[in-house]
């Protein structure tokens, strides 16, 4: 039996090896088995080509004999020794030719370096060496190949190797396949597709695509995928299309992918060739078919409709794959072509989305797949997960949904974090179709939420976001904010902050809560959220929530003012938040009479002083000051300006920023006005009033008339103007005529304002800009206009450059001026759209009848967790929930109930948190597993568990392997893993008595046995071996070692 044999074989190997090494290695020329050879001198391995080859053949011999009939153990071990030696030799000189001592040294020193800085030193030295060597004349080709690999090392380890790029390019011209491919590899690693050197390669690629050697063609097609950019596509396109019909399947496959690449780069260049992908789907070779799925996936993503007819084909392919019609070599862990299955499922998910007819064709095969799929392997679960994605994407089928829910619950109940993660993700997909699906998993979800694993936590937040309703928004957002505060990762902080804002805007149960929540978000992530959010908040405070009466609005405002006055004393607040604070204090600081003007102005001065480097905040602060003073004057109270305010105003009046200066002077002017003037200039609480703007600016008519009368050109509307530019651009391309662009551009910048004196105060900025652009800047006219200087003709290159600029950036600048003109009138509506879109709420149905049965099962769950579950999923506290749903948004009477639940929630959260650290594992108990099990779990070393994870998959396959073993169809895999299985099986059987419960603990046992197998192999023996090996390998006595280098990756 091959299993038994090879297991002993493996152990025999390491023991014997150890003996051999320990006794004989120090002496040169050890005797190895029946073959008598002196240890080759690896110092110059390239001289040893024939010897190395011989060893290689022995190695093959050894490999061969492993597969044949059983051999007495002693011979085996000898053979195995040979194999090892052969391999070590091969390391130095694999493929029959040598790598120089220099290369070995390089790899060795990189391998042994202990720190990045040491590695950097090695590479810097290497760069110096290479710079010298690579320019030497007459370098042998093989040597050059080695240099190029060393260049790859240099780049890989983060240093610039551009000095050698050209050598890599040259190597692609070589006739030898290996050298050519190495050259292509290096080039693809070094250059991006827009690099100047690419042009030198296109020719070579063209030549290689015509080669008789299909491997050369393959190499060239690989390079096509990496190096051809939009401009060079036409150079190779005809050849690539021709190769789609090549007799070798490997070539066809790569040609398909090259075409895919062209499609990705520039769909228009290959739009007429798209049908080829359909044809290649029916290719006789499964590899070509599998590859074709990639472009088809992209195509279907973009345009579902055109591919509905392929549903039948995809379904039938999937069916055939599932029925194991593909060659065995595509199997992976007993699963037929899983990666093809997954791709097919993805495509089917797209095609069936919202299409009942198409979906019905898939139901059968999906059902089969769900039933047949082996859930004990990772790959099986990967397919199951993809099935769920597909099922939740296509037109729903109750049976399939049920099956999907079942799989999800298996995932969630698993101890494996990866499966939990997939389960949470899948649940998030399913929940759109069956909103009650989450209900039965509430505790599992909460466990994931409280898991120390960040990835899992985030995934769970994603799920919660999908489940959010007005009844649970407080708990969810609260949790999110807590989490947001706790993390440092800016990218994710930004994301979660915007999610909080989105949820709060969408589901806020009360204004008060909304403001408090926004305060928290701003306080902790103010710099990360979109400034629009701040504007939204200001608008909300100004307008209140829709139809509410005035008292509610003023309550809202005074609570906002109060909270801001409290927060403002805290150090280092984000700018956006300070802007909101200043604005609100200015508008409503003194509105309810609780705070005096001098108190508020004092606070505003403090802000301006504390954040003196932030001009925007200062601008907001001084405008707020102005508002407060205006209100005071309008109310007829005596104005007394605090000395610090006086200083601030004076300071800003002398500021370098014209904006601040202007604000300061305006303030001084306003303070000098009397009450009546102020009443009309700055009416109180009028921030929501629309300012009427007549965009036709009729008061300028007389001025325009006069100008026209004086011989100026008439105004050309914007759209016509840009069209004129386009045309002139077009026709001028390549002509010297394009000099007009230069003129245009300069004139645009000129600050000659034809209407400097008249503009009305409120829109002064805008109008001046508006008028100033057209008259001088527009080319055609200006040419004729005698007042403008003609373009200096010496500006040739400048003009050229501007041409490019015009293309890329020029256009948007014109619209932007227009938007600034309309911006004033549209700005009040600016945020509204966001609110409106947010208001389209998700479904709010809540069945929750399953809760009772569930409750029985969860007797031992801590009350805190139950509370959290209830507040999230609306479980036991259903009555409360109902109240809060009815008070959604109206919030007048509901203030009480929402208040209540928010009191309950922090306590629940804090207690659960306190609970977690001392007993992290009992959480697993919630899933109803026997207590003993989880008591065993902590004993296993976490490291071992991971190792076990690896073994687990193999053991999954080994189980079935062992059953069908009699036929033994797969010698390859068997020989690969047989030893492993045996270790595992034996250790399992010894462990069995220890295992607490037969049925439930198989997972656990596997991890233990995996760990055990690892332990019995013994790292120490190995390390000793490895050290020796390394010594022999390099032929140098190393000072430090990195034993890990020799560790079997799959061991």
């Amino acid at each position, binding site marked *: 039996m091959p299993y038994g044999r090879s297991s002993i074989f493996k152990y025999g190997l390491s023991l014997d090896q150890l003996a051999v090494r320990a006794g004989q290695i120090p002496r040169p020329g050890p005797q190895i088995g029946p073959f008598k050879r002196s240890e080759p001198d690896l110092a110059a391995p390239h001289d040893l080509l024939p010897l190395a080859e011989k060893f290689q053949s022995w*190695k093959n011999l050894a490999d061969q004999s492993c597969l044949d009939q059983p051999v007495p153990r002693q011979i085996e071990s000898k053979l195995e020794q040979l*194999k090892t030696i052969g391999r070590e030799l091969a*390391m130095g000189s*694999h493929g*029959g030719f040598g790598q120089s001592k220099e290369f070995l040294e390089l790899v060795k020193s*990189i*391998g042994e370096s202990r*720190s*990045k800085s040491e*590695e950097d030193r090695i590479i810097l030295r290497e760069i110096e060496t290479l710079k010298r060597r690579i320019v030497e004349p007459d370098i042998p080709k093989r040597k050059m190949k080695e240099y190029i690999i060393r260049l790859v*090392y240099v*780049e*890989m*380890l*983060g240093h610039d190797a551009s000095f050698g790029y050209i050598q890599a390019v040259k190597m692609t011209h070589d006739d030898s*396949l*290996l*050298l050519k491919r190495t050259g292509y*590899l290096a080039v693809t*690693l070094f250059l991006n597709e827009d690099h100047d050197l690419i042009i030198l390669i296109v020719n070579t690629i063209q030549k290689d695509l015509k080669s008789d050697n299909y491997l050369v063609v393959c190499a060239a097609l*690989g390079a096509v*995928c990496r190096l051809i950019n939009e401009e060079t596509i036409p150079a190779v396109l005809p050849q690539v299309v021709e190769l789609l019909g090549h007799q070798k399947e*490997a070539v066809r496959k790569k040609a398909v*992918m090259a075409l*895919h690449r062209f499609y990705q780069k520039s769909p228009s260049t290959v739009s007429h060739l798209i049908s080829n992908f359909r044809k290649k789907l029916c290719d006789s070779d499964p*590899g070509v078919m599998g*590859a074709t799925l*990639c472009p088809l996936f992209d195509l279907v993503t973009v345009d579902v409709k055109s591919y509905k007819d392929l549903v039948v084909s995809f379904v039938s392919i999937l069916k055939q794959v599932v029925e194991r019609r593909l*060659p065995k*070599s*595509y199997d*992976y862990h007993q699963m037929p072509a899983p*990666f093809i299955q*997954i*791709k097919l499922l993805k495509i089917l998910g797209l095609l069936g989305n919202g299409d009942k007819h198409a979906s019905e064709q898939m139901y059968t095969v999906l059902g089969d797949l769900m039933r047949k799929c082996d859930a004990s392997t*990772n*790959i099986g679960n*990967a397919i199951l*997960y*993809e099935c769920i994605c597909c099922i939740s994407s296509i037109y729903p089928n109750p049976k399939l949904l049920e099956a999907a829910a079942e799989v999800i619950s298996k995932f969630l109940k698993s101890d494996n*974090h*990866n499966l939990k993660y997939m389960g949470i993700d899948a649940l998030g997909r399913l929940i759109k179709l069956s909103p009650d699906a989450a209900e039965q998993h509430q505790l599992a979800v909460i466990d994931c939420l409280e898991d*120390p*694993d*960040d*990835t*899992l936590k*985030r995934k769970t937040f994603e799920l919660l976001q999908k489940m959010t309703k007005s009844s649970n928004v407080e708990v969810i957002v609260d949790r999110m904010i807590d989490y947001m505060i706790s993390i440092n990762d800016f*990218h994710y902080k930004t994301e979660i902050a915007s999610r909080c804002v989105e949820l709060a805007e969408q589901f806020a149960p009360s204004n008060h809560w909304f403001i408090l929540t926004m305060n928290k978000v701003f306080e902790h992530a103010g710099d990360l959220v979109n400034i629009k959010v701040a504007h939204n908040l200001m608008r909300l405070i100004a307008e209140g929530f829709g139809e509410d009466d005035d008292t509610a609005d003023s309550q809202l405002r005074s609570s906002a003012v109060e909270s801001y006055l409290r927060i403002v004393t805290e150090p280092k607040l984000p700018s956006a938040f300070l802007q909101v604070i200043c604005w609100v204090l200015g508008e409503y600081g003194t509105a309810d009479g609780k705070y005096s003007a001098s108190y508020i102005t004092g606070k505003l001065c403090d802000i301006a002083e504390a954040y003196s480097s932030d001009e925007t905040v200062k601008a907001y602060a001084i405008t707020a000051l102005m508002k407060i003073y205006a209100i005071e004057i309008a109310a007829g109270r005596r104005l007394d300006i605090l000395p610090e305010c006086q200083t601030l105003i004076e300071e800003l009046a002398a500021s370098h920023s014209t904006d601040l200066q202007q604000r300061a002077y305006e303030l001084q002017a306003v303070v000098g006005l009397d009450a009546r003037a102020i009443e009309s200039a700055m009416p109180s609480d009028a921030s929501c009033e629309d300012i009427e703007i007549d965009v036709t600016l009729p008061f300028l008519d007389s001025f325009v008339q006069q100008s026209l009368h004086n011989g100026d050109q008439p105004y050309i509307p914007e759209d016509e103007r840009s069209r004129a530019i386009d045309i002139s651009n077009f026709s001028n391309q390549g002509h010297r005529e394009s000099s007009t662009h230069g003129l245009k551009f300069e004139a645009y910048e000129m600050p000659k304002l034809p209407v400097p004196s008249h503009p009305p105060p409120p829109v002064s900025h805008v109008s001046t800009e508006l008028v100033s652009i057209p008259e001088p800047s527009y080319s055609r006219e200006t040419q004729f206009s005698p007042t403008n200087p003609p373009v200096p003709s010496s500006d040739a290159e400048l003009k050229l450059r501007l041409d490019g600029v015009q293309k890329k950036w020029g256009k948007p600048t014109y619209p932007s001026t227009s938007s600034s003109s309309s911006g004033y009138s549209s700005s009040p509506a600016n945020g509204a759209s966001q609110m409106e879109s947010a208001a389209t709420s998700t479904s709010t149905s809540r069945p929750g009848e399953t809760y009772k049965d569930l409750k029985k099962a969860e007797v031992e769950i801590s009350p805190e967790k139950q509370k959290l579950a209830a507040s999230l999923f609306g479980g036991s506290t259903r009555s409360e929930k109902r109240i809060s749903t009815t008070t959604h948004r109206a919030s007048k009477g509901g203030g009480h109930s929402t208040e209540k639940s928010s009191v309950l929630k922090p306590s629940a959260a804090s207690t659960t948190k306190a609970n977690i650290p001392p007993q992290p594992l009992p959480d697993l108990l919630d899933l109803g597993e026997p207590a003993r099990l989880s008591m065993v779990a902590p004993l296993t070393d976490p*490291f071992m*568990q*991971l190792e076990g994870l690896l073994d687990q*998959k193999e053991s999954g396959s080994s189980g079935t392997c062992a059953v069908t073993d009699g036929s033994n169809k797969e010698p390859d895999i068997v020989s*690969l893993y047989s030893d492993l299985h045996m270790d595992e099986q034996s250790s399992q059987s010894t462990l069995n008595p220890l295992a607490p419960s037969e049925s439930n603990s198989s997972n656990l046992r596997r991890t233990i046995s995996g760990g055990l197998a690892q332990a019995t192999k013994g790292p120490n023996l190995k390390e000793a071996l490895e050290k020796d090996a390394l010594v022999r390998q390099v032929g140098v006595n190393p000072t430090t070692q990195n034993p890990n*280098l020799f*560790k*079997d*990756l*799959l*061991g």
Partner: protein
Amino acid sequence: MGIRFILMVNKQGQTRLAQYYEYLTLEERRALEGEIVRKCLARTEQQCSFVEHRNYKIVYRRYASLFFLVGVDNEENELAILEFIHLLVETMDQHFGNVCELDIMFHLEKAHFMLEEMVMNGCIVETSKSNILMPIQLMDKTS
């Protein structure tokens, strides 16, 4: 696009193989590799094998001292990528026999060739070990 990059990095954070399917400058690569490795090394073995980083999702797996990291975009099936890593290691194991870190270091180009066969344009195109290894074996024979 699916797979955005494939990295092999050892426990000391030293890169052993890097293949990017989108262009990043040298500095960007250096920074990215450093950040990712720090993130992954900080994780315990029970935690799941997926990490979010910037706009990537990273699926990683450890073999002995070597981490295999695959950066994917959001639509990818993480579990499948995890198995893809294993397939890659099995393939290398079949070629090198008891593959170890040093095999990859000495035969960097071969490891790359295998990847080139398996992944194109960021998509998994070939999963049959014999198909993956055939060109490499042929090349060995001829040269």
